């Protein structure tokens, strides 16, 4: 992997960093060979900035996606405010220009879908969005109507991914989404939950249905999914999208009271806690991408930076989690 930003005065590489580099090189030589594992090859298209981003394969199709996406919960729900819409557009454009692709939203997120659609309509850069949305309505018979309304708001011919939001009426929605996938009206199908809710039902669906994605909450403190859902996703060839990596900002606020450990800078290339948390999340072999939300261009660039540089191995991941838990 290339492109790691390094301060000019940084000390020579310690041995662990050398090992990480060797690990990165070895993984890069195995594109898609490991189910759910990090594959570090650059994509074939998209903006130049995408070349050095960590891409991970979606197990069901082999398609590679950048490991850092963009969530829109709260941050993109700005209504008709022209100034706030311009800020959101700047964030989305910076994200796409920076090589990001996965943008996730939901009809539950107020005006977020319309704000995304507005920003995409104004985008003239080389980036390519991977449009991930959700269906969130009951009864399930109203699903197609809601999906069509969402598609119009995004202004796209079709979604790349449709997920059943919080498993609401999933028994009705999942057959609808599968039929849409068969008809070529959506590329991938998934389910979502957050903050550890309904994990038993999520597992049951993962076992019984050929979903492409599952979306769950995961970060160095909320690690329940490491026990069953992430291993199951790897076993079943299901991609994983991680929501709330920063606990909606609360985790970063808490971490900001502590200095970033020096080893996180030297061995991982982190420039702050946001990259530390994101590197921890996306380095799990089963995780496809994380979708942190922000309304600041500087933050979206910093988040994308987490998909550059060394990828922590299992030992370093344990150290990262232990360090955060001890604070």
């Amino acid at each position, binding site marked *: 992997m290339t492109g790691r930003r390094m301060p000019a005065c940084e000390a020579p590489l310690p041995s662990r960093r050398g090992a990480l580099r060797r690990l990165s090189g070895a993984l890069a030589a195995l594109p898609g060979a490991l189910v759910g594992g990090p594959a570090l090859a650059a994509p074939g298209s998209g903006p130049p900035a995408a070349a050095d981003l960590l891409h991970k394969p979606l197990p069901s199709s082999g398609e590679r996606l950048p490991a850092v996406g963009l969530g829109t919960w709260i941050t993109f*729900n700005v*209504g*008709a405010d022209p*100034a706030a819409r311009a800020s959101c557009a700047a964030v989305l454009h910076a994200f796409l220009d920076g090589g990001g692709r996965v943008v996730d939203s939901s009809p539950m*997120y*107020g005006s977020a879908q319309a704000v995304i659609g507005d920003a995409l309509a104004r985008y003239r850069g080389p980036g390519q969005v991977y449009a991930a949305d959700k269906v969130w309505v009951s009864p399930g018979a109203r699903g197609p109507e809601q999906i069509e309304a969402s598609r119009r708001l995004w202004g796209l011919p079709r979604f790349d991914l449709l997920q059943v939001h919080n498993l609401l009426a999933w028994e009705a929605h999942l057959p609808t989404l599968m039929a849409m996938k068969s008809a070529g009206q959506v590329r991938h199908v998934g389910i979502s939950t957050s903050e550890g*809710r*309904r994990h038993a039902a999520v597992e049951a669906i993962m076992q019984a249905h050929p979903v492409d994605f599952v979306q769950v909450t995961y970060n160095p403190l909320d690690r329940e999914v490491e026990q069953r859902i992430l291993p199951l996703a790897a076993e079943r060839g299901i991609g994983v999208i991680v929501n709330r990596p920063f606990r909606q900002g609360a985790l970063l606020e808490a971490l900001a009271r502590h200095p970033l450990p020096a080893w996180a800078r030297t061995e991982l290339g982190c420039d702050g806690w946001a990259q530390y948390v994101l590197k921890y999340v996306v380095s799990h072999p089963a995780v496809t991408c994380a979708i942190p939300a922000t309304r600041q261009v500087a933050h979206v660039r910093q988040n994308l930076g987490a998909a550059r540089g060394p990828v922590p191995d299992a030992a370093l991941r344990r150290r990262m989690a232990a360090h955060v838990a001890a604070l």
Partner: protein
Amino acid sequence: MTEWWTYRLSDFLLFAPDTYRRLFELAHAQGWPWAQAAAAVLGLGVGLCAARAPAQPRAAALGCLLLGAAWAGAALFLGRHYATINWGAPALAAAFWLQAALLAACGVTGLATPQPGPPRRPPTLRARRTGGWLIGAAVAGYPWLAPLQGQPWAQAELFAQMPDPTVLATLGLWPLLRAGAPPQGGAERAAALLWWLAWPIPLAAALVAGATLWAMGSPTAPLLPAAAALACWAARR
């Protein structure tokens, strides 16, 4: 919704606090200057009516009509602005329109009652003082909350334009309008019924506002629930 016990109040907040406050700024910019002028006139009118309501039933009726207009103004804000960031706002706006209609009915019923009406026990001193303070706080005090919290004046909440000060003024007027004696004729019975019917929506709106502000971490969150409790206490005979 399953596992409902795992949800926090903040899980239902769809927007950031600065997005919420920008709605006031946008509404002021769109309505300037006529909306602000109308709000000032309505606020002054409700204040004068409240001052005269204990002695003059027609002033009380006029106060209800003005308050109904204020609720219509707040309903417009909910439907035009708040609905852009909260899919629950249209239901809230419908409740505000219903309240506006109930207040208008109260006003019309009061004006239709032959004068002088039957002997009327005046509101208690407690009701007059509490009502006066709440109305004054709603009309003259509420706009100061924005600058006191370090926000621009453009984000000030005005009575008759924004929901919270409108609810607060209603909570102040209501104890003043409670009939002192058991209703005698048909018009009085209708007025008494309307008084009770027009009570739940402001109380519920105060709780919703308090919960929303609490979820946003606003220090003003307890204001409206506390005012609702105060108004209930003041309305007791």
